[in-house]
């Protein structure tokens, strides 16, 4: 098995702009992500609505139809704008994807045009027709209604809603528990001026990371970024994610009409900052519930047939591990007991040699397979960059292979149960 030893290219084409290049000409498609990172502050409702309004057109392409037609002319290049909460920051993201140069007819260029088209939506927006009108009022009100409808409809996706509620309840007084759009009330109150202020803040004050992957040409993107961000930028410093430990385990049961109940269990832990510790924690999480090899899958699904799927996950930079499962509500207590029993056993007895073999095989295959997925490579290198762990997949693989049972046991020790959250139908 071979692992990528690629060290990504880092550039700083403009003030507060970092360009991360991990490209490979084997791929047929190039992908460029631009992440504008800001605090999860009071402007986030405006930012969420802003993107929906901006997507209606730009100064150059004044409606959705002409925007879409231009991207189709670029051999089906695509662009997507989104906002999300990422750990304890607010991200405004633009993701562009286009066919690699080697597959285009001679003389065709798509990368820079799709970058211009996508960012033109944000930098040179469509203005209102009335004197001094920042945005078309009819677009603003229509998009506000659409966003409010969409926020209401999120309960219709029981799985997503349960996951959102779990985080909001567990981290009620932390940034991590905040909703990306703040609230429906906040969206309803946003003014056109607040939208414009939010737009300018994104351009001028956000920490910007550009990630080039697939067959995207890094030099072209670097040159383009230097021109696009050629301005005075006063970047807002972002705080590190907060750390909190619970005083007692809480049980919260909320109700929604549903066929299958959703159980989430959250624990707090210390997130190691060095590679060996990080790999040990990843191994512990994997052994507990990282897939079909995990204890929870084996015990809860395979032995007891209580769930179709049950998995554990680490929450990036936030010091949280959670377990989620779709279950029959009447089994909630039994599943919860089994989860905590397995966590205790892992901390007290450590992993078996067989469990270590399975989790290592899984991790190493995942690290080796990164090389074949532009998206996974982008996510891995960006995640490492954010965590300050500038390690290649080869370095992470080596650390994984050196792990001992004691290190994994140690990593599984001291997890503090915080919340058992159940979303189920009312009895």
């Amino acid at each position: 098995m071979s692992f990528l030893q690629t060290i990504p290219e880092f550039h700083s084409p403009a003030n507060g702009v970092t360009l991360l290049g991990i490209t490979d000409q084997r791929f047929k498609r190039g992908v460029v992500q631009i992440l504008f990172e800001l605090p999860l502050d009071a402007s986030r409702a405006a930012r969420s609505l802003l993107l929906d309004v901006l997507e209606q057109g730009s100064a150059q392409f004044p409606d959705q139809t002409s925007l879409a037609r231009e991207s189709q002319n670029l051999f089906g290049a695509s662009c997507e704008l989104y906002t999300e909460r990422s750990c304890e920051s607010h991200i405004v993201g633009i993701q562009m994807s286009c066919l690699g140069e080697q597959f285009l007819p001679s003389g065709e260029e798509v990368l820079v045009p799709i970058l211009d088209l996508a960012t033109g939506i944000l930098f040179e927006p469509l203005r209102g027709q009335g004197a001094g009108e920042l945005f078309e009022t009819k677009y603003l009100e229509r998009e506000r209604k659409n966003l409010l409808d969409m926020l209401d409809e999120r309960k219709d996706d029981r799985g997503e809603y349960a996951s959102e509620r779990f985080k909001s309840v567990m981290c009620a007084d932390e940034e991590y528990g905040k909703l990306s759009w703040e609230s429906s009330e906040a969206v309803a109150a946003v003014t056109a001026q607040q939208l414009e202020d939010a737009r300018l803040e994104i351009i001028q004050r956000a920490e910007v990371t550009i990630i080039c992957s697939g067959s995207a040409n890094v030099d072209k993107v670097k040159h383009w970024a230097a021109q696009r961000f050629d301005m005075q930028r006063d970047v807002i410093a972002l705080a590190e994610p907060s750390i909190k430990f619970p005083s007692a385990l809480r049980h919260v049961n909320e109700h929604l009409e549903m066929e299958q109940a959703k159980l989430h269990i959250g624990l707090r832990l210390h997130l190691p900052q060095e590679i060996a510790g990080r790999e040990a924690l990843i191994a512990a999480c994997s052994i507990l519930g990282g897939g079909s090899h995990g204890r929870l899958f084996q015990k809860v699904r395979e032995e007891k047939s209580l769930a179709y799927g049950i998995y554990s996950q680490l929450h990036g930079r936030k010091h949280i591990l959670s377990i989620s499962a779709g279950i029959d509500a009447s089994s909630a207590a039994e599943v919860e007991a089994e989860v905590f029993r397995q966590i205790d056993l892992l901390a007290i007895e450590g992993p078996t040699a067989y469990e270590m073999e399975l989790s290592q095989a899984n991790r190493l295959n995942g690290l080796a397979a990164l090389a074949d997925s532009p998206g996974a490579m982008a996510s891995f290198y960006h995640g490492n960059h954010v965590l300050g762990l500038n390690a290649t997949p080869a370095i992470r693989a080596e650390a994984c292979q050196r792990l001992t049972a004691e290190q994994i046991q140690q990593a599984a020790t001291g997890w503090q149960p915080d919340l058992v959250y159940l979303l189920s139908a009312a009895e």
Partner: protein
Amino acid sequence: MKTTRTIKHPQLEETVHLLETANGIQIALIPTPGFHTTAAHFGLRFGGNDLHFVMPNGDDHQVPTGSAHYLEHKLFEGRQEKVFDRFNRLGANFNGGTSFCQTTYYFSTAAHFDECLEVLLDFVQDPLITEERVDKERGIIEQEVRMYQDSPGYRGTFLLHEAMYESHSMRVGPGGTLEDVARINATDLQRCYDGFYVPQALRLAIAGDFDVEEMKQKLEPLLRTDDTAIAERSSDDATSTRLTGYVEEEFAVTRPYVFIGYAQREVEADGQLRLRQRIVASLLLDLMFGKSSELRQELYAAEIIDDSFSAYWSADETWGHVIMSGICDKPQKFVDNITQACDKFIANKIKASDFERLRKAAWGGIVSGLQTPSAVASSVLSSMLAGNEIFSALDELQAISLADIQDAAENLFDDSKRAVAVLTPKDK
């Protein structure tokens, strides 16, 4: 095993070597030099719709809905050791899937490819199905079915199918009903296996950085050598449309979910012709309701649709339909406006420039879709199971004319073949 053909596609920069065993297993080997992972996708044309069939000995069998999906789960039990455990020791990514007409099993791995291939071909070709094992899986499958039952998109689609199709098979998802899952037994599953999991039905696609001759040698000892005959599907297929017209059901949703379906008048039974039909339908729906369409813009501006609106075409040998759906406050207004929009589109001629622009975009989508060994193997197996020429989508795309699209529009949106399903909020 003999090599039947080699197909090279210069625009896609892909080559596929087609092989066939003496008993009819068809294999596609696609070298992808420079890639770290190798993917193998193994499947057959047997899915949720196959509920009634006649065995080679003349025995006639009817099995409960969800049988193909249940069988897929049971195969993962393995004969002597769970397949999960075997793949997990090798660190592979693996899964299976059951649709209306197909079942597939696959893995991708950056190491231990030979062992993984052995596991895949072993568990699919040599299962052990007993009542005890079948009973043990029931709770897990019930949870999976319940998970889908909470999805408005899933429930609405099948409510629409109920309105559109006489055939029971299209009216229930491949997972089956909870009632049927409760009664499926080992005999049902064994009959399904014996009838359809036979060499002449099996198709295998492997993509990765390998030597074709070496791969052939690896495969030889791992493939079944028997010559079992295949069962015959009964004729009570989905072609008979039911067309209730309008059905409504209360569901736990915040606003009404509306699904409009047009059953296809004529579906191509031939795989290649159906691929062409698929591309034509896809271009047509993009022209009508894609983001570059003026019609969509009008509907969006009039607040008839929002970003929840979608339109897609789906078909197999005996059924085909287009489904348009969205979330709205006034279902009847939504239906009236969408159907009027369809009529308006058909009445107006499609602009050649719009067609050419969408063809260009579709070209980019097809080329860039074949990005990784997994994507390549999956696409090739799909072609093999659907019965179309591998990597021929680009050629079909080039051959399609504006007149083909116009004809499809006139044929597809036939009011006499339309049905509507609405999920309404329970508290309104």
